């Protein structure tokens, strides 16, 4: 008994030793976790650098290098945490150990995983911010370049017919758009010669938003109608479910009533029999006669 206990105790000690060795190993990789923290700081630094970037002076090369380094670190840390989890699971699955050890090991693994997840999320946010900055720069570049040269204006005006053709509802809208683009193209060869065409082009660009808003409002109205119909479909489905549930209730009520009917009929039969029993006089007279005879017998036995 004692041997078994000591054996179990030693196995406990062995296992805790094993676990503490693994924790030691991970603590040695804690510098890499600290590197993970430093990678986080670097990520913050990347974020700051990405924020401060301007149109002309963006440190793309630095950002890309830092991003690569951070990604490598994160993948290494991920692999280490996965290894630790495997060891933990094999430990749990191999022998019967106390619940404290299991909870301890699982908590440590979960903690590490959560920290890694937090660092990855922050990294992702920094990357999205960087892409947004890039987009903003691109649009600003386009804005400034449209004022410098009229070239992008034509594809701009041409893009709208293509975009609005897909959203246009009325059959009359594509022909006006086609005509608009075809009327704008002969303007462009005359651009250098005709100074008056410039306000016309700007006017057309203004009218593009008006038609745009008209089309957009139509598209929005259609979306609303579609979502309303969808909701209506939902409501109908719910209604059907409720009615079917209530149908089942009605069936139950029906069964209950049938049970009641059977019971009452049976009870009525019994009562009729009872009534017949007590209403017929002959049976009653025989009973009274027997009672009298019995009484007389007892009387005779006691007296005589």
């Amino acid at each position, binding site marked *: 008994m004692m041997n078994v206990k000591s054996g179990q105790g030693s196995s406990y000690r062995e296992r805790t030793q094993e676990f503490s060795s693994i924790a030691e190993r991970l603590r040695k990789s804690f510098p890499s976790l600290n590197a993970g923290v430093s990678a986080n700081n670097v990520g913050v630094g990347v974020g700051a650098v990405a924020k401060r970037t301007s149109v002309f002076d963006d440190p793309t090369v630095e950002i890309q290098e830092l991003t690569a380094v951070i990604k490598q670190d994160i993948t290494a840390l991920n692999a280490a945490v996965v290894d630790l989890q495997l060891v933990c699971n094999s430990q749990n699955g191999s022998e019967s150990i106390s619940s404290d050890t299991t909870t301890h090991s699982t908590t440590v693994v979960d903690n590490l995983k959560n920290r890694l997840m937090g660092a990855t999320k922050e990294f992702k946010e920094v990357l999205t911010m960087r892409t947004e900055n890039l987009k903003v720069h691109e649009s600003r570049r386009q804005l400034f370049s449209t004022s410098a040269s009229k070239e992008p204006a034509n594809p701009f005006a041409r893009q709208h017919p293509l975009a609005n053709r897909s959203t246009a509802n009325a059959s009359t809208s594509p022909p006006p758009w086609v005509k608009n683009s075809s009327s704008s193209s002969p303007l462009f060869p005359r651009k250098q010669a005709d100074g008056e065409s410039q306000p016309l082009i700007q006017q057309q660009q203004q*009218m593009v938003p*008006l038609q745009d808003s008209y089309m957009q409002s139509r598209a929005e109205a259609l979306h609303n109608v579609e979502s309303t119909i969808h909701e*209506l479909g939902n409501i109908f489905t719910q*209604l059907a479910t409720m009615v079917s549930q*209530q149908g089942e209730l009605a069936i139950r009520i029906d069964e209950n*009533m049938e049970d009641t009917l059977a019971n*009452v009929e049976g009870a009525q039969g019994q009562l009729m029999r*009872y009534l017949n029993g007590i209403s017929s006089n002959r049976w009653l007279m025989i009973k009274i006669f027997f009672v009298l005879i019995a009484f007389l017998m007892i009387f005779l036995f006691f007296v005589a």
Partner: protein
Amino acid sequence: MKITALLVLKCDSRSDGSDPVILANATDVNHFGYFQRVTVRQFIVFVGRTVAKRTPPDQRHSVQHEEYKVHSYNRNGLCVVGFMDDHYPVRSAFSVLNKVIDEYQKCFGETWRNIQADSTQPWPYLNEALTKFQDPGEADNLLKIQRELDETKIILHKTIDSVLERGEKLDSLVEKSSDLSAASQMFYKQAKKTNQCCTIL
């Protein structure tokens, strides 16, 4: 939500000097005083001409003028102008203009191109359109559909409420019927007991 006037004009986009020629005119000025009506009509004609002149071909335009919104739609030289108040939704306004212009082209084909002077003949369709489209739902199918869908949704909500009530009543009925069946069972047992017990006595 009101339409005050609908005008159909012929716009000459080539020669900007000439004013557009009025082809059809329908106005509803009854809410002005009797003596102001003529002035208001002239004002409408003038503003309509100006707006139509400024609308380039195949464009829709909306101008805010005092308390009216003037919407114009120029298609191929035929321009239709509508005077609506601020509450009238813009989309329905343009669908009204679309309908009017389609109807005009169906009725008159291309003969309007030759008209050089303001035509004073009333076009009955325009007058009925003016009265019919006072309600923006009439012109705009989308708005009508949206309205009907909203009504249907309200009705469905009411239906669901009444179905829930029915469910509650059915619940109480189930309770009562189960109570009844238990009571009848007790009754049957009692009757059997009284019947069997007193055969001797």
